[in-house]
């Protein structure tokens, strides 16, 4: 069941407000794609357009070279899972799931068969005669999914599927969806604002902002090489340190050299992720710990140096082992980061000082660490 989706030049405006400002995208057959972005980025509108629940002002949507826009939603063969499930509240679970088959006049015996098979697949066998109001959030979600799958859609669309669920249920359902997709491999697109979710589930992630696509690629590609500042900041926390670039050297304000970068002379900002700051006690260190906050397995260290402020994240065990505490003098080593010159569009990797000083060793170490962190997402 591999349908390829091609989207070209999609535009939509509500009055003066542009919701989609030119979307070009191809979803490969059988791919699991995430549309990731903040609210207002247009991702849900794009999803609904693929389903036919919204119409673009101009542009094209094709399923396998067939013009999808020419067909109304009921003929597109798209399975849609709504954010709040939209289960038919006056029908039992079994009737909900079988609805798409019933309207296609499939014989009742056949419907019963298919519904039973689907309920088994989503692990809800014993809830056939219940009503949606009697189910938990996670159960409702699975019913919504089963209902969409019952019509054997060529494309499966999910709108913030796990947004309304609590953290534990969310984690379980994510894993379960991933497994399910591997089994049925139907082209799937889902919308989320949760970067972690997108990275865990998707083959490819498309980051959207203000109606445009900022970047599309595998999670690793996005993390390693963000196309612009927005993508970088959206994908995780970042410390922002103002800097000057002179002859390729990146210098933070109080005369601290951070490293080198392929950027022209000028001013800019260095972005460093919290785990790219290595902290160790040093009586002569120029940095000072402002506060240590333990939050489970990882701890946050608020650091200050003159006018500069940054936050590092370290495993709590390490914090305890090093005996880090407030008002302690420490040395901070930057192990990676990105430089965003004021005049540039895309961030450029920072080659930190530590790597410059001991090139070959630092290379290996740094690459190892970077790989680890990228895998953690």
């Amino acid at each position, binding site marked *: 069941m591999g349908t390829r989706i091609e989207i070209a030049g999609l535009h939509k405006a509500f009055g003066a407000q542009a919701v989609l400002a030119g979307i070009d995208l191809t979803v490969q057959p059988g791919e699991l794609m995430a549309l990731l972005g903040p609210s207002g980025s247009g991702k849900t509108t794009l999803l609904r357009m693929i389903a036919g629940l919204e119409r673009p002002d101009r542009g094209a949507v094709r399923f396998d070279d067939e013009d999808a826009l020419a067909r109304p939603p009921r003929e597109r063969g798209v399975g849609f899972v709504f954010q709040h499930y939209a289960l038919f509240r*006056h029908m039992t679970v079994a009737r909900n799931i079988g609805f798409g088959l019933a309207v*296609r006049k499939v014989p009742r015996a056949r419907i019963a068969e298919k519904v039973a098979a689907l309920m088994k697949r989503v692990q809800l066998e014993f809830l056939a005669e219940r009503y949606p109001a009697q189910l938990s959030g996670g159960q409702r979600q699975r019913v919504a999914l089963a209902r969409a799958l019952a019509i054997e859609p060529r494309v499966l669309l999910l709108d913030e599927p796990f947004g309304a669920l609590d953290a534990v249920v969310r984690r379980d359902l994510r894993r379960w969806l991933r497994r399910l997709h591997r089994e049925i491999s139907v082209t799937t697109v889902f919308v989320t604002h949760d970067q972690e979710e997108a990275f865990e589930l998707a083959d490819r992630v498309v980051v959207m902002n203000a109606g445009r696509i900022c970047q599309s690629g595998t999670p690793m590609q996005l993390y390693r090489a963000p196309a612009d500042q927005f993508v970088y900041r959206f994908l995780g926390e970042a410390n922002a340190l103002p800097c000057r670039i002179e002859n390729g050297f990146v210098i933070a304000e109080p005369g601290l050299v951070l490293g080198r970068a392929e950027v022209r002379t000028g001013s800019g900002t260095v972005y460093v992720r919290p785990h790219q700051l290595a902290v160790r006690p040093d009586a002569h260190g120029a940095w000072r710990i402002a506060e240590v906050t333990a939050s489970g397995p990882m701890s946050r260290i608020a650091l200050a140096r003159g006018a500069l402020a940054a936050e590092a994240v370290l495993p709590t065990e390490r914090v305890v082992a090093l005996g880090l505490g407030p008002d302690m003098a420490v040395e901070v080593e930057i192990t990676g980061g990105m430089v965003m010159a004021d005049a540039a569009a895309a961030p450029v990797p920072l080659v930190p000082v530590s790597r410059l000083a001991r090139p070959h060793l630092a290379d290996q170490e740094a690459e190892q660490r970077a790989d680890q962190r990228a895998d953690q997402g």
Partner: protein
Amino acid sequence: MAAESSAAAFASLRGPARPLLIGTALGFVALFLVLPLGVIFAEAFSLGLRAYAAALADPDVRAALLLTIFIALVAVPLNTFFGVAASWCLARFRFRGGALIVTLIELPFSVSPVVAGLLLVLLFGRFGLLGAFLEAHGVRVIFAVPGMVLATIFVTFPFVARELISLAQAQGNEEEEAAVTLGASFLQTFLQVSLPKLRWGLLYGVLLCNARAIGEFGAVSVVSGEVPGQTNTLPLEVHALYSGYEMQAAFAAATLLAGIAIVTLVLKAALESRHRDELRATRRARTG
């Protein structure tokens, strides 16, 4: 209600104020609502049971009752049908002029029933806009039953429409959208998904519509001409009897209407307590 336990626990207007307030409220209700209801039954039976039965057996009263029921049986289903249509196009779609349509639908609520009757006279009466046309075809609307049906329809059609529009709007379109993506046609979506959702609101609206249709007085009186036995509904008959100083008979007929009103109140309360969530949108200010 969240306010319940907190209010009971907290001293908001507790102390001497509380029993005083409750007493005042109950006293007012007793005086202005309970007494009038009571006097209807007291007067109806003031001359004994036999006189009561005789008054109800009167042919004019019988005819009036039948006419009232007939008018209700015509007006309520028609208003329900169009109310459902209105709720579909206003709740599921957004378009310019939607607000205007809602205002027009609510118009009968802000118009005096007498003015409503007058409007129909100006349209269908002998000297009205369509008067000449109707005369030429021998159709009698004003001072005849058709006019009374129209007057009743005019005054009662907002009930169902209003109820359904706000309920449908509150329920949202998602289930209908889901049905459409699953391949349902308009009729399938409407009958299997939308209508079941609306059923309690529909029942509620029909209940109110029916109560008003049976009880309407001002508008119907203007267009009817009050010919006893022919163009009198039960409220009009009550009026006629009272004006003719047949008090006991008037109140006897009134007990029928009061009985219907009480049944309406009971059903209304039952619907509100059992299906509060499905009528939720309509708990905002309702008008008669």
